[in-house]
């Protein structure tokens, strides 16, 4: 994750957009459940190394958008381009292999496995997954990767603890660790600070900032303080459509956004 080049480079200034290549682009993305249009003609673009927040009132389609991007839901129409390649309709495992990872709004880990195993199994998904004849602990590359990821999310001291026994905040960070272990280019974080205390929220924000050095991040978040501090750009969803897009400063002054947020 931390390549020497990335460490040497000065910390990136907020990306204004034009210089970096596009990692993710949606074209006319729509999804309908029966009569309900959950996403309606969503067009947006995320540049490399950007932190993009997606906000909107409850039911605006934020999680649905994530589910489309990660293959859990198949869009009714439109395309999703990841590094220029159309990935809409691919199953979740194929999309993961392409380099999109996600963490879940509701903690989604292997509760009866250790913290290390949760991350190790994710690291192993890139190689050796079909090996049947060697003990899983004898793969130095995978174990090294898993331990490095645990260290980066601050859980190395809990490596041999059952994931079910971690605190809520630690489980949320393990979520991020599992996603990181798959070596993604694009990381989708679905409310990473949900249910966290103020101190935990602060730590997780630091964590997100740290891992964002050479990673594109999409983040859905209700905590406006987190959004405004972290995001380079913000996309506002309302009733499944894009209401506004811009820098945190723009969004805070956008009358349409204010109206939506004051009404709900």
């Amino acid at each position, binding site marked *: 994750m931390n390549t020497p080049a990335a460490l040497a480079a000065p910390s990136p200034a907020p990306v204004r957009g034009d210089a970096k290549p596009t990692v993710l682009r949606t074209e006319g993305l729509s999804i309908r459940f029966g009569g309900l249009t959950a996403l309606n003609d969503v067009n947006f673009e995320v540049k490399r190394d950007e932190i993009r927040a997606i906000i909107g009132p409850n039911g605006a389609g934020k999680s649905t958008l994530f589910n489309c991007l990660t293959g859990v839901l198949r869009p009714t129409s439109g395309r999703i381009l990841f590094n220029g390649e159309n990935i809409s309709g691919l199953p979740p495992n194929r999309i993961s292999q392409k380099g999109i990872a996600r963490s879940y709004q509701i903690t*989604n*880990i*292997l509760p009866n496995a250790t913290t290390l195993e949760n991350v190790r199994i994710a690291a*192993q998904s890139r190689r050796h997954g079909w090996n049947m*004849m060697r003990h899983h602990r004898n793969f130095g590359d995978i174990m090294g990767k898993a331990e490095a990821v645990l260290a980066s999310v601050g859980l190395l001291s809990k490596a041999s603890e059952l994931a079910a026994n971690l605190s809520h905040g630690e489980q949320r960070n393990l979520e991020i660790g599992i996603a990181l272990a*798959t070596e993604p280019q694009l990381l989708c974080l679905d409310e990473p600070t949900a249910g966290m205390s103020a101190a935990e929220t602060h730590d997780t924000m630091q964590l997100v900032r740290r891992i964002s050095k050479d990673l594109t991040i999409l983040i859905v978040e209700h905590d406006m303080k987190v959004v405004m501090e972290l995001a380079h750009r913000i996309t506002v969803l309302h009733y499944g459509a894009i209401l506004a897009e811009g820098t945190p400063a723009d969004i805070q002054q956008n009358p349409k956004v204010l109206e939506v947020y004051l009404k709900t």
Partner: protein
Amino acid sequence: MTKRHAKIYWTGFTVIIALLVIAPLVLPEFWRRFLTEILIWGLLAMSSDLLIGYTGMVSFGHSAFFGLGMYGAAAAILMVKPPNLWLAILYGLAASAAVAMFVAYFSTRLRDIYFAITTLIFSQIFYVIIFTWTEVTGGENGLSFARPALGIPGVYTVPFTSTTLHWFVLAIVAISYLVLRRVTQSPFGMVLQSIRENEARTRAIGYPVERYKMVAVMLSGLFAGLAGVLYAIQNRFAAPDFVYFLISGEVVIFNVMGGIGTLLGPIVGAGFFLGLREGFSRLFPWIATTFDMPYLAEFPYLIPVGIIFILMVIFLPQGLLGFMKQRLNQ
């Protein structure tokens, strides 16, 4: 596993194998055969543990893999002259692998009870085919044949005695156990356990879950077929009864009694259940003659077996071995 654990484990393993090697030398003929049979059923139960205990899929189709192993062995023994033990194993494995591939392809798209029912239906389909295709399978009567000799035909062979057969079965079951144990500890095995714990998450981190399940079913079917081959060699017949789903049900019972997800547990479960059944089937006639209570002679002995099973499910849900493991860890 720590160093100390590993030492205890391998000491225990060696002691048990040594006891099983000595057992046929001291046991009378009937119990010698009985012990061999327990090992064979244990292998079948262990193969299904790979699905039930490690992947979280309950298969009710293991009778099909077991039965096809039997018929595959029968085909080799009846068609190839002189009968060749190794060809019997090869044919049996090929037959069960073919069936397992077929069943796996269709059933792994489904989950939970739908998977169980699909495997059950497939095993019943094979039962009906074998039962009705009399010209090839011998229909209701099955096929009977002579037992092939141990060794390489044309070079050196010795006929099996019940003792050498026991050792042969023991060797195959022990090797199968070690192989399956390694598979469950391998990266592949960890993926299966991850699927059991959280299938959607396993898919989300990049694993083609259906393909892993398919391979798991095939692997499990292969070892079930191996058990079928051994059973055919021991009993010198292949019969449609062994393709019938009641056998699959017993396999699940062995797993539950012995402890799922432990590999050895199902063997313990098979031994416990078969021993219980054998014991009770003798107990009532014995009481009837000893205490002069003739009305007890015909007592349905499966009733107490069933009651014990129900009590165990309630009070020992982790099974015999699971319970022992828990106790040892404390």
